């Protein structure tokens, strides 16, 4: 039987909801429930490109990601699931003109000042990292060895298994229809399986977050855009260790997964839309751009293509924080393609915000009210 009264109700069984529940439980909150309309991970987490990087161009995202990587590194042990491991195989940005090099030099200097060991390297050094690269047009690259990737399936499964052992209720195939509010105070949620009382509700529904906000009369701009990814047949392991990024070639990003297949995508997007049908245009453009970066990929077969949402805000940074108009209502959504990689830091900060009222992480940067004040942030470095 689903509980009809909890302390904290979390909408969304993706990585943000699950990880935040874990951080709350570690802080002694016992009575937490998660509501997921399909199966855990099904919204955006299971559709993500697996990358985890600290090579951003602004202080807030770099600091958040630095903390996130520390937490990703120890997550497997923390949840008694050593099978989950972040692979620190690095991110390699390929640069093709002086303007790009200048801007990445500034990024590297900022990253280094915050303790991220990224560096500017030569095309030849890039080729030492990935021998199949075509460096004929590349004039420089940046590489950070402590960036990498992780398997979202294992992260979600491992967290959920741990949460269930800790007595936290995860309700799959249970859709939240409404957030219940009385006298500007959260009272609970109405789900497809009945009403649940709760003094605190966290909206971690990412692309779907706006549906609840709009019903509550809150205008926080988050829109779903269709992005896509592909996976190839497996090939010799170790050929493409880092995540390779090229803005010149379609905003392409790709790496080799642990099972030997390639995973990645390009910046082609559609929307705002709820449609996730894969497009032939994407399949063709992915192939064109990937094979410009590594010509030998021509001989590799694509075996799967899928769509997923980037829940985008006007400045492509998430909205994270407490909603002032409604006591007990918190929001962590609109991750614009960076939710998986950011999730450990978001969860830690959100758990502190809920239990202590503040966090040392730079949540001000993600303030939900920046749009109505007209204070858009600089767009983060973004692929896909």
């Amino acid at each position: 039987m689903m509980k009809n009264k909890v302390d904290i109700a979390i909408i969304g069984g993706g990585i943000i909801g699950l990880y935040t529940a874990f951080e709350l439980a570690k802080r002694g909150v016992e009575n937490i429930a998660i509501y997921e309309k399909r199966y855990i991970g099904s919204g955006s987490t299971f559709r993500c490109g697996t990358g985890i990087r600290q090579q951003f161009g602004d202080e807030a995202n770099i600091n958040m990601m630095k903390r996130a990587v520390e937490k990703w590194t120890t997550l497997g042990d923390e949840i008694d699931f050593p099978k989950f491991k972040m692979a620190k195989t690095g991110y390699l940005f390929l640069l093709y003109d002086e303007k790009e090099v200048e801007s990445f030099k500034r990024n590297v200097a900022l990253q280094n000042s915050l303790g991220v060991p990224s560096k500017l390297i030569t095309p030849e050094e890039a080729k030492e990292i990935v021998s199949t690269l075509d460096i004929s047009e590349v004039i420089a690259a940046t590489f950070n060895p402590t960036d990498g990737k992780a398997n979202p399936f294992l992260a979600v499964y491992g967290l959920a298994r741990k949460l269930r052992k800790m007595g936290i209720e995860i309700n799959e195939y249970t859709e939240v229809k409404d957030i219940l509010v009385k006298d500007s105070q959260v009272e609970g949620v109405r789900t497809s399986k009945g009403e649940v009382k709760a003094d605190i509700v966290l909206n971690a529904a990412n692309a779907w977050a706006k549906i609840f906000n709009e019903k509550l009369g809150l205008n926080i701009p988050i829109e779903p855009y269709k992005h896509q990814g592909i996976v190839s047949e497996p090939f010799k392991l170790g050929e493409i260790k880092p995540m390779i990024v090229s803005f010149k070639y379609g905003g392409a990003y790709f790496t080799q997964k642990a099972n030997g297949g390639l995973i990645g995508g390009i910046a082609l997007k559609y929307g705002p839309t709820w449609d996730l049908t894969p497009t032939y245009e994407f399949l063709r453009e992915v192939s064109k751009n990937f094979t410009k970066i590594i010509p030998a990929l021509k001989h590799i077969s694509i075996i799967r293509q899928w769509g997923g949402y980037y829940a985008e805000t006007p400045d492509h940074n998430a909205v994270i924080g407490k909603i002032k108009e409604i006591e007990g209502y918190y929001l962590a959504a609109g991750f614009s393609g960076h939710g998986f990689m950011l999730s450990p830091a978001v969860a830690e900060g959100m758990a502190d915000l809920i239990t202590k009222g503040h966090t040392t992480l730079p949540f001000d940067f993600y303030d939900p009210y920046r749009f109505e004040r007209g204070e858009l942030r600089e767009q983060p470095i973004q692929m896909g």
Partner: protein
Amino acid sequence: MVDKSKVIICRCNDVTQKDIEELIDQGITDIEMIKRLTHVGMGPCQGRTCIPLVAAIIARKTGKSYDEIGIPATRIPTKPVQMRVLVGDDDEE
């Protein structure tokens, strides 16, 4: 007795009957999660061979109906396609 660790359910990703049954015994009975933990149905065959077998194992072990079990999404391309074909460079052989 058949050695279930030698009964291959998914030829693309080397998943055995034992692998599937162990997950079900741990309480993982959602075909979507079984798929993601073992990668059944995510290889070049797109699940043509393995998914009906996995559904049958779940049905037998849990008593769930095929309707309840459901079928995970199949993805395009239905057959593996080399990137050189997609970029229009398929005449080199």
